[in-house]
């Protein structure tokens, strides 16, 4: 095709060459940008894997951190106390945020008028934007002043961070449920609450779980609020959330400050476990998402 036939390209050919060159250059820049983003992920994960992998052992999961961070060097080190603490605190956060988040989403999607819907979603957006460290001071003022630090306080702080994530994910999937389903249920005489809880909500379970899984992955790595409300930690493994519990991110934060090699190695090991957990949950969430999309599509037919 000769370019001179096209009216836009009636200019001399060297101009077309220039335009093509700019286009190729810009496409190259976009390719490089994508490569850079993947490179960032790769270099972080590779560093953590390289330095943490040699520390992966049974001791990591069965032994606790040495007291005062300055171990004698000969004793075996582990992060069992931090794993237990993270498990307990994330469990508490999920137990609070999941029901409340789902209820908010039900209200927004099934009951609220347009104006209230807008107000609540805006509130959730603002809540999602509040820095984690500010949430930490909120819980400090609300619970820790007077009652002291505890796993409950940390769980509550993380639930505040989790709430908007769960709510927004649930609102999105509830909006996908076809109205024909609601109308069918209401049409055969089911009351609204039964339609919502028995017919609509079960369709969204996959999507809700996807959102919840991603939220868990996000809060399990949170350090800032935990530092403020749950950091004066005793020695050894502790399952009791009425006392302050160690968490994995806090352990990494404190250990990274140490100059000694064994402490730093332990920090890398904790980081590796955290990253593996997050990769696993992301994959799980992806799988749940594809499954639930298929299910909702079927329900619509």
């Amino acid at each position, binding site marked *: 095709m000769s370019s001179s036939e096209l009216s836009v390209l009636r200019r001399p050919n060297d101009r077309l060459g220039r*335009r093509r060159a700019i*286009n190729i250059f*810009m*496409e190259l*820049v*976009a390719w490089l*940008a*994508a490569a850079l*983003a*993947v490179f*960032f*992920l790769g*270099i*972080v994960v590779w*560093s*953590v894997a390289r330095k943490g992998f040699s520390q992966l052992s049974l001791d990591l999961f069965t032994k606790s951190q040495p007291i005062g961070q300055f171990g004698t060097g000969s004793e075996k080190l582990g992060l069992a106390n931090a794993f237990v603490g993270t498990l307990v605190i994330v469990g508490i956060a999920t137990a609070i945020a999941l029901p409340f988040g789902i*209820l*908010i989403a*039900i*209200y927004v999607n099934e*009951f609220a008028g347009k104006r209230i819907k807008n107000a*609540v979603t*805006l*509130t*959730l957006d*603002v*809540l*999602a*934007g*509040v*820095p*984690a460290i*500010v949430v930490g*001071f*909120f819980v400090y*003022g*609300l619970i820790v002043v007077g009652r002291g630090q505890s796993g409950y306080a940390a769980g509550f702080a993380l639930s505040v961070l989790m*709430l908007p994530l769960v*709510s927004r994910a649930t609102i999105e999937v509830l909006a996908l449920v076809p109205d024909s389903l609601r109308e069918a*249920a209401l049409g*055969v*005489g089911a*009351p609204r609450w*039964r339609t919502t809880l028995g*017919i609509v909500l*079960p369709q969204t379970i996959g999507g809700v779980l996807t959102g919840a899984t*991603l939220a868990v992955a996000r809060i399990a*790595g949170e*350090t*800032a609020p935990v*530092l403020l409300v749950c950091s004066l930690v005793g020695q050894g493994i502790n399952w009791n959330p009425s006392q302050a519990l160690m968490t994995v991110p806090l352990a*990494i*934060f404190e250990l*990274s400050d140490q100059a000694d090699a064994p402490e*730093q190695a332990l*920090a890398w090991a904790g980081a590796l476990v*955290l*990253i593996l957990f997050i990769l696993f949950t*992301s994959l799980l969430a*992806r799988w749940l998402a594809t499954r639930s999309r298929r299910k909702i599509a079927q329900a619509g037919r």
Partner: protein
Amino acid sequence: MTSLDVSTDVARRPFSGRRARLGDLLLQGAAAIAALGSLALVILIAWKVIQGARLSLSTFGLGFLTHVVWDPVQLKFGAASFLYGTAITSVGALILATPIAIGVALFLSELAPGGIRGPVTALVETLAAIPSVVIGLWGILVLAPFLRDHVDPALHSTLGFIPLFGPATYGSNIFTAIVVLTIMILPIIASISRELFLAVPSELKEGALGLGTTRWEMIRGVVFPYARAGVAAAMILGLGRAIGEAIAVSMVIGGAVGVSINIFQPGQTLAGQIAGQYTSQNSALFLSSLIYLALILLVFSIVVNLLAQFIVRRSARRHGVVR
């Protein structure tokens, strides 16, 4: 299918009107209380933070914002150096991250061959999921020494005539914090921009290409104008994230009070100061001053988010999208 079972069951044994109404009332009531609770939560957060900062507010007033000093012994506290640190790190990160993020988004929405589009999208989302403490650990033990030995001196020798790129001595400095924040906000801006670019109607894109534009000319002429407001909102959200990041920044920035134009010197941000100093606070005024810093952060975050939402909603209205 279960939904069918339930409906026949319901049809066979109709609910008494009273029970149905009670159930409706309970569910709607509980849901409304939860929704109202989210609003109450935001107000409660603001109230508790103001309450915690009250001692410092009454001692220093608004002068807190302009004083550079942070002296726990003399009990003199001011936020000016951290305001500066927050401004230079977050704006610096935004300047570095935005072009890369837009490049990533264009790649994922327009250029990537089918086979690698999905995996790369997933990888970019995974980068967003890496906890800040892990990025901080990598930043202090891997990135900071590398920048100190290779990048900082090179930047100083080539761009040293600009005061920003002064002599480099420490690995933990403002520039390291900027790089760490760039990595953290890059995937946020990229994934929002990608969705915006994908939402551009394909008739418009095809129309432009049909007129004989190159792909880049189509992107400049069609995709960018269409997504401009949304990308601005994404940048603001990224900025908000950078302003509020505490842990990773406090690990790599060096923790120095003062205003250093040279980005190869240690500094500190509002959030970083809280994370770095919280465990060493030893007086009521010290603690209250840290909460004052948190109050400034809270105000920033609310302003930033409302601004971003305002831009998004206004542009949605202009595009005729009903939200």
